[in-house]
């Protein structure tokens, strides 16, 4: 019985973690290439949830499909936000001053988005009702929620696609080169500003899609991003700042820890376990699970 309970919590944690992993990859990609900590990442996730909701309620689009449909418009939105806002605070010299400007910009953007959505769409929570949200696959004594299973599968698929893109295509490799050494990337005819735009576009598209997947089982409200941006930060730091595989593993670990915390602590305290694990990893391995110490040859 105890073992079955444990397995149940592990499975639930893994399923949660897949979606966390997807949203964290977006944040890690943006940080890795642009060195920008995007505090508005949670708000783009929230917007992805609303778009999925709108497609589901207005047009009867299944939220799993809706989540995938958020990708193109949010990629374009990311390009626009980069072009209009971020381009002014990246790559102009003095990194310390730029970091302050980036922080104020993305934090401000987060506040504006949250409050605009609250004004326009009301703070009232909404949900998408699907048949599979309340059903479960029974595997022996273990119950696996269907909505979470589908969300997990799609999150995994998208994460694999991102990985293949980054490791097999010229553009993906150019993005990683720009993350490694922007100056040397410029010498290879890789336009660093374009790489920033692409990284931001993909990062926003991924977190919006993760939001859409989350919307199959999580209530939608204007402030929902705040709860998740914290988890994304922890996942990205756990995995090693800027590391994409690291952020993926970090997301999975957070899902697991969150779920297993419920074995010993009440629901309201489920993030306590996450932060304890976070501090522990930082203490034992400050560069994160997958981070590399700076190398100078």
């Amino acid at each position, binding site marked *: 019985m105890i073992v079955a309970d444990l397995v149940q919590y592990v499975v639930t944690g893994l399923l949660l973690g897949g979606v966390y992993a997807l949203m964290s990859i977006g944040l890690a990609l943006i940080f890795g290439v642009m060195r920008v900590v995007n505090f508005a990442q949670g708000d783009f996730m929230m917007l992805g949830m609303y778009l999925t909701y709108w497609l589901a309620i207005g047009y009867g689009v299944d939220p799993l499909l809706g989540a995938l449909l958020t990708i193109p418009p949010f990629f374009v939105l990311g390009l626009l936000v980069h072009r209009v806002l971020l381009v002014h605070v990246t790559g102009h010299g003095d990194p310390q001053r730029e970091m302050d400007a980036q922080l104020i910009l993305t934090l401000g953007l987060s506040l504006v988005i949250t409050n605009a959505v609250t004004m326009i769409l009301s703070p009232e929570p909404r949900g998408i009702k699907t048949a599979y949200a309340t059903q479960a696959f029974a595997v022996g004594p273990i119950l696996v929620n269907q909505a979470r299973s589908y969300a997990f599968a799609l999150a995994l698929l998208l994460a694999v696609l991102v990985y293949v893109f980054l490791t097999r295509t010229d553009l993906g490799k150019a993005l990683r080169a720009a993350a490694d050494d922007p100056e040397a990337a410029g010498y290879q005819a890789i336009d660093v500003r*374009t790489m920033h735009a692409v990284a931001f576009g993909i990062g926003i598209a991924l977190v919006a899609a993760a939001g859409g997947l989350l919307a199959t089982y999580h209530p939608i409200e204007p402030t929902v991003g705040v709860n998740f941006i914290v988890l994304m930060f922890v996942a990205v730091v756990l995995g090693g700042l800027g590391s994409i595989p690291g952020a993926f593993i970090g997301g999975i670990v957070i899902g697991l820890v969150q779920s297993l915390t419920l074995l010993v602590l009440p629901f309201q305290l489920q993030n306590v376990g996450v932060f304890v694990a976070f501090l522990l990893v930082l203490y034992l391995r400050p560069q994160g699970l997958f981070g590399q110490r700076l190398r100078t*040859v």
Partner: protein
Amino acid sequence: MSAMLKIAGLGVSYGGLHALADVSLDVADGEFVTIVGPNGAGKTTLLKAISGAVRVESGHIEFRGRDVGALSPARRAALGIAHVPEGRRVFPSLTVLDNLELGSYRAAARPRRAESLEAVLALFPVLRSRAKQLAGSLSGGEQQMLALGRGLMAQPDLLLLDEPSQGLGPRIVEQIFETIAEIRRRRRLTILLVEQRVVEALELADRGYVLETGRVVLAGGRGALLADPRVQGAYLGA
């Protein structure tokens, strides 16, 4: 011979200090020119100004008759300037093969990528055996070969080499210089080489410039510079 690169009255400063002042030089098509001088003379800054990585305060940079002064580094690289930077600057988290492939990222070099790759691997066989390894795990000498190979993958019209001997053991240095000489013999590639090793650099090149505290203090052919009493006194220990 037509001019590949023409620089006139170039000035660069960092925080009010002149790194380069009124530098003029030119490199003809097919020529091998070297810029020598002591540490801090502005040699690296000069190469960075040519490839667009530092902001130029005054002067003109013309590449193949076109003013490139306002173009981004990526645009200049796309036109055919390949910069092999000081300290090698390979992409450490990418494989050796990925590093080389990114060398031919520019549109003009991409169709001939496979052919360039074979040529580069023939020149540096050690890179073939390390192809799947991360570039950050290579030794300093191997990283220098990779940086050179990456530059050649661009099939550039002008190759800028910044201190390829820096921080390497004598045997590797010799090998690197021999390879540069071989590249030169085989391809008649136009090369601008910056070096602190004055003798080796001058012996490889057709012509040279001596840069001191941001100014060109001496210029001339290989023989003339090697024989110049000021060069001998300052750099050759004669």
